[in-house]
């Protein structure tokens, strides 16, 4: 991430977009790199192409979706225990 200077870089939507595009690019690169790097494998699951990328993405989506449902169940007002 960028170090903000006095101009406050993220006030400009263009700069936010740049960060996001950089992320897309680096994700793509990391997958492409898999063609060139010999991966040491400890477990057969790891042989699936892009296993870590898919797992990381899926894990976070599942995490957030479950957490959203959890919130309906356990969220209370801030003074819940004070009543």
């Amino acid at each position, binding site marked *: 991430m960028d170090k903000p200077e006095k101009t406050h870089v993220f006030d400009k939507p263009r700069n936010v977009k740049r960060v996001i595009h950089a992320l897309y690019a680096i994700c793509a690169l990391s997958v492409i790199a898999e063609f060139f790097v010999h*991966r040491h494998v400890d477990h057969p699951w790891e042989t699936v192409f892009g296993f*870590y990328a898919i797992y*990381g993405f899926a*894990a976070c989506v599942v995490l957030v979706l479950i957490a959203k449902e959890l919130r309906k169940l356990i969220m209370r007002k801030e003074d*819940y225990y004070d009543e």
Partner: protein
Amino acid sequence: MSSMTPFLVFFLGAILVALTKGRLQSMVLLAIPVVGALNLYYLPADMTGGTMMFSYTLSWLRIDKLSILFGYLFHLAAFIGIIFSLNLRDTTQHVSGVLYAGSALGAVFAGDLITLFVFWELLAVTSVFLILARRTEKSQQAAMRYLIIQITSGLILLAGVLLRVHETGSIAFGHIGLSGLSSWLIFIAFGIKCAFPFLHNWLTDAYPEATPSGTVFLSSFTTKVAVFSLARCFAGEEILIYIGAVMAMFPIYFAVIENDLRRVLAYSLINQIGFMVVGIGIGTALAVNGAVAHAFNDVVFKGLLMMSMGAVLYRTGTMKGSELGGLYKSMPKTATFCIVGAASISAFPLFSGFVSKSMVMVAALDEGYPIVWLALLFASAGVFHHAGIKIPFFAFFAHDSGIRVKEAPRNMLIAMGLAAVICIFNGSYPWVLYSMLPFPVDYAPYTMAHVLTQSQLLFFSALAFCMLKLYNLYPPELRGINIDVEWAYRWLLPRATKGFVTLFAPIDQACRALAVRRIEVLIARLYRHHGPHGVLAKSWPTGSTALWVAIVLGGLLLVYYF
């Protein structure tokens, strides 16, 4: 210079801190961990310390690789914490912080279970002031709950130790293993301090209520002493693998929807301890090395994250994600340090988490626990999500909250900078840390495959965050709290006992009234006889006393005669 037991340096130092003020106090504070570390360095390897109590030898100095590593770690943590708190003019906090660090040192150098118990309880008693020092009603209540649970853990430990002495006659603080009641009691006592699932809630309840610097101290010591104790007594117990996997998994869900950012970090603290507990449970040299190395790194990067949030709290007065945002504009240095901490806890290559967490994960695969490995991988993605992205994002970026404050005080920046340097040093050059581990290290963290797979995992986790945010699927920061296990004793118990009280209060009152009446009657009777006008309070002439003595003597003579 003659050496002394490490905790003594801190306990004696605490007295000096209490007696001094201002600049001198700051110098004393800084000198304590430095003198302590030098003392530790020059400690003869064969030095022991102890005392006889009844027929047991209590030993407060046992030196081996494990205790030395934790010893240095706690000196380092105390040094960083002290620098961070230097701008405070609050002797209570300074003294209790130093005593607390000293108690942690006492525990890791303890040679027997009784000594461990003493420092176990001291950890609780000395640290509670770091929560009380916030001086709000909420913190007072949280501190009392914290104290009750911590002391309970100590009592369970004591019960376990006494039973064990009865069974085996030994108070040795070594491998115990799970067999029989006494070992389970000790295990549960460790589990409470280690924040096992369902026993974890004291941590997420109390730590976020402590003072900005108090939380930095708290997150360094108590749980790590518990991890150390588990490694000493229960390494290789399979149940720990599953407990650890659950610890790594469940807090991340709570962390994603938590609004108080220091509570998010408290949940992520449990998540990180989960990795260590798995490592101890696997029990191989690689796994235990991984657990211990991760404990070391966690103290530094979690301390760094807690410091960055402490600085934000100190400047803005709030810790709620829903009220913060855009602080990179006014606290850019704190933001940078926070990102270093975030990268370290997320285990980015070149940052400290990368070289230690993976040891535990490789060990899990090697020893045939693929499901646990998948759970840890999930937790790794999850920790990046909540501690790596959420903390810096909602505090320093996100929408601009309009809050404009000064950058953190200089001493706080120095403390954060020091921790950040250690995070990057350990991540880039892990060999110093590896050489201090309890077993010889045969592990290379920087293989192409490891760097690539870990990068993929993290970048795609970031991508997921980005997409969810762009499509408005990400749960926003909302004002509110989330109930956890504490609901049972903070909500249910008071209400359940309320019914009990309304039922039994009249009976109780009647009994008390009856007892009071009885006592009043008794007092009145005593007063009648012994009061100023009572028959026994009358003054008697000397003559009649002489007469009575003569009668008694005469009676005695008669009895003697027959």
